[in-house]
C-alpha cells in the first residue's frame, strides 16, 4: 500500500480563449481523496493507474464522485516526480474531464514518501453552452505509500470561472383565469329604460342596440348580480348572491342586544347591526331599566330595521314625611340595576304639597339621595346616577303621586341637563 497525500493549492485561474467573456469568475475550493491502483517498474515508482475519487468543489458541488487515469515517473530518493492524470467529475455534468499535470520533489523512498510540488489543470469544455475551458495553477504536497495501491488526499483552492449552476426549474404556469360564465339557469334583467328579461345569448345584441354610454345593470336571477356596460359581458364582475339579511336594532346608546348567541352593545348611534340568515329571529334588548323582546322577520338581501321602545321613568314610592326605602322599592331598584345596561339615571325627588315648602324640598332631596345610595349599593356604578332638582307639585289633586322619587333613564353619552 502506498499512501499519497496530495495537497494542491491552486493559484489564480486563467480563463481560456474559449471562455465566454461574461463567464463568472469565482474562488473554487476543492477537496478530494482518491484510491489508486497501478503498476510500477520499480518499487515506489508508479507508471500508471486508475483512481476512484470522492471529493467536492466549493461552493457549487460540495460532494462529488469522479474517476481518474494517471501516469507518473521519476527516480528514488530526492528526485523530481512528474505526474499526469485525467479526471472526470460525474456529478458536475457541465464540467468536462480535467488534464492534470503535477511536478514535485519527493523526499526519500519507503512506506512514507512526502513530496511537494506545483501543478496545473486544464478543464476541458464539453460540447454544451454552459461549459467552458478552465486553467488552474496551484501547489501540491503529497505522501506516497507502497505500490501498486495508493491513497491520495487532496485539498486546496483554485481561482477560476465557476460553472454556472443549472437554471432553476421554470415556475409552474399560472392558472388560467376562470371564464366569466353564467349558470345555466341564470336570467338577466335589464332595468330602466329597457325593462326586460333577456337570455344570455341575446344580451350582447341588446346592449349593442343601446346608446354607447348606456350603462346596464344586469341581474342573474337568484344567483348573482352583474354589472356591465354596452360593450357586453367582457369584464363584468360577478358578485355572490346574498345568503343573509341584515338586522338593524334601533335602540339607544347603552342598550345591549342579544340575538341568538350574539350579544352586542349599541354604538354611539344606538344601532346594532347583525347579519342573520333568513327566517324569524328574536332580538332581546336590555337597557335603561327595560327588557324587550322583538320578533323580526329577516329577508335575504334586505335590511330589516326594528325600533326598540323607549324606557319609561321609574317611580319609587315613599310614605308621608319619610325618606326611607321600603323592601318592595328595593326589589324594584334591584331589577332596575340588573336592566340598566350602559344607561345613566337622573333622580328627581318629589313631595306632596302638605306642610312647609322648604322642609318639603329638603325631604325630596333626601328621598333622591336615598334612592341614589340604594342604587349604588345594589351595584350601579356611581357615574351612572345623578340627582337633579326636585319636582315641585303644581296642585294637591294627587298628593300621593308626588311622594315619589322619579328615575329618568338617559342614554349613554347624552349630555346632562
Amino acid at each position: 500500500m502506498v499512501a499519497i497525500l496530495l495537497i494542491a493549492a491552486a493559484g489564480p485561474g486563467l480563463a481560456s480563449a474559449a471562455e465566454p467573456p461574461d463567464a463568472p469568475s469565482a474562488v473554487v475550493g476543492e477537496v478530494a481523496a482518491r484510491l489508486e491502483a497501478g503498476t510500477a517498474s520499480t518499487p515506489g515508482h508508479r507508471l500508471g493507474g486508475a483512481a476512484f475519487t470522492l471529493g467536492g468543489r466549493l461552493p457549487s458541488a460540495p460532494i462529488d464522485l469522479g474517476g481518474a487515469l494517471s501516469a507518473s515517473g521519476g527516480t528514488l530518493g530526492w528526485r523530481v516526480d512528474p505526474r499526469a492524470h485525467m479526471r472526470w467529475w460525474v456529478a458536475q455534468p457541465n464540467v468536462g474531464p480535467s488534464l492534470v499535470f503535477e511536478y514535485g520533489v519527493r523526499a526519500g523512498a519507503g512506506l512514507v514518501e512526502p513530496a511537494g510540488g506545483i501543478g496545473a489543470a486544464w478543464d476541458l469544455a464539453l460540447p454544451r453552452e454552459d461549459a467552458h475551458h478552465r486553467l488552474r495553477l496551484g501547489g501540491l504536497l503529497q505522501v506516497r505509500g507502497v505500490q501498486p495501491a495508493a491513497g491520495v488526499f487532496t485539498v486546496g483552492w483554485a481561482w477560476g470561472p465557476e460553472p454556472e449552476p443549472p437554471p432553476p426549474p421554470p415556475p409552474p404556469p399560472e392558472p388560467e383565469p376562470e371564464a366569466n360564465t353564467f349558470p345555466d339557469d341564470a336570467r338577466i334583467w335589464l332595468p330602466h329604460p329597457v325593462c326586460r328579461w333577456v337570455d344570455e345569448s341575446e344580451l350582447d345584441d341588446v346592449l349593442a342596440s343601446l346608446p354607447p354610454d348606456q350603462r346596464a345593470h344586469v341581474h342573474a336571477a337568484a344567483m348573482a348580480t352583474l354589472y356591465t356596460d354596452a360593450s357586453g359581458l367582457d369584464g363584468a364582475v360577478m358578485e355572490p348572491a346574498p345568503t343573509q339579511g341584515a338586522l338593524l336594532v334601533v335602540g339607544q346608546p347603552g342598550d345591549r342586544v342579544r340575538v341568538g348567541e350574539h350579544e352586542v352593545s349599541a354604538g354611539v348611534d344606538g344601532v346594532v347591526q347583525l347579519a342573520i340568515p333568513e327566517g324569524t329571529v328574536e332580538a332581546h334588548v336590555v337597557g335603561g331599566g327595560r327588557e324587550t323582546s322583538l320578533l323580526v322577520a329577516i329577508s335575504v338581501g334586505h335590511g330589516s330595521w326594528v325600533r326598540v321602545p323607549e324606557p319609561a321613568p321609574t317611580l319609587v314610592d315613599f310614605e308621608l314625611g319619610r325618606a326611607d326605602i321600603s323592601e318592595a322599592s328595593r326589589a324594584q331598584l334591584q331589577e332596575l340595576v340588573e336592566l340598566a345596561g350602559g344607561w345613566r339615571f337622573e333622580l328627581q325627588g318629589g313631595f306632596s304639597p302638605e306642610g312647609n315648602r322648604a322642609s318639603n324640598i329638603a325631604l325630596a332631596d333626601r328621598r333622591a339621595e336615598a334612592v341614589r345610595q340604594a342604587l349604588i349599593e345594589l351595584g350601579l356604578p356611581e357615574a351612572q346616577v345623578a340627582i337633579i332638582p326636585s319636582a315641585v307639585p303644581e296642585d294637591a289633586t294627587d298628593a300621593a303621586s308626588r311622594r315619589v322619587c322619579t328615575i329618568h333613564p338617559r342614554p349613554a353619552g347624552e349630555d346632562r341637563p
Partner: protein
Amino acid sequence: MIALLVGLLSAHAADRVVVHTGDTVEAIAAAAGDPAAAAAIRAENGLADGDQPRPGTILVLPDALSGTARDAAVLSVFGGVHATIPSIGKVAVETSMPLPPESRVCTDVDGYVTIRLAVSEGGGHHDDITLLPGTCLTIEATSARRKGRSSVVALNRGSITVPPLGPGEQRGEITVATEAGVTSAEDGGFRVHVEEAGQRTEALYTGLSVFGEGVELSLRAGQGSRVPLGGAPTSPVDLLGAGTPDAPPNGATLRRPDFSWLRVETALGYQVELARSADFRDMLVLQSVDRPAWEPDRLLLPGDVEGIWWRVATIDRHGFIGIPSKPRRLDLPPGVRP
C-alpha cells in the same frame, strides 16, 4: 329598443279617446285621421246618429282608427302585488310581466307596483303609473299613436301616482277613470285617490282635466279637486308646499331611520315616500304621519339598490296631498347592501 318591445305588441288594438269640452264625434274622427269614421265611432260606442258624447266620456275607437296597441308591463314591484290576467287567471306579479288589456292589478297593504302603460312606436317614451298599497286598477287600453301615446285605466280602489315627464320625453295621455269621475293628463305628474264618496285628484307639476257628470274642470299645477259620486268636480284647491327635509342629510348613510322636516303651519299631516330611484317610479314606502317627523318602528328595504331616495309632501286640512319636496338620497349601510 325597438326590438325589445316587439314582443310586447298586442293582437288587439282598441284605442280610446277622452271627450273634452267642445269635442264632437266628427272632430275626433278627423283627429284620428278619417273624418268619415264618425258613424263607425258612434256605432262602436252605442251613440245614435247626431248624438254627441258628454265631456269625460271615454270613446272606443274602431280598430281602423286605433294606434298600435301594446301590452302594458310591470316595471317594478315591492311587497305583495297580484294580477288577474285574461285567459291566465290570478298570478303573483313579477317584474317585466306583460299586462294585456283587461288585466286587473291589485296591491296588498304593503305592496307597490309601477306599470309601464303605453310605449311610443319608436320606443324611448312611455307612460308609467304607480299603484300605492291597497289599490286595484284595471288596464283598459294602452296604445301608441303617431303623435303620442294613450293609456286608459279604471281605478277601482286605492291611490295611484303618475310621475312627471322626464327631460325630453314626449307627451302621452293617461286617463284614470273612477266610479265618480275621470282624470286625464298629457304630461303626467298627478295623483288620483278613490274616496268613500268620490275621487280626489291632485295636479302636481302640470295642468290636467277632471271630469264629472259631463263637466270638465281644468286644474293648474299645484291644484286639487274632488269629484263626488254623481256630481261635478269641486272648485280647485291650492295644494300646500312641501316641508323642507331636515334629517337625515342628503347623502347620509341610513343607520337610524329618523326622518324629520320643517313644519308647515297649516298642515294636517305629512306623507313620506321612499323609493329606489329619484323619479320615484320604484316606490318602496309611503307613510302618512301627523307631525313633521317619521321614526318607523319597523322598516324593510331591499339591499340591491345603489341608494334610497326620500321626500315628503304636506297634507292639508281638506285631505289634499301637496307637491313633494325635492328628493334626498341616502346610502344603505355596508352589510345591508351586498
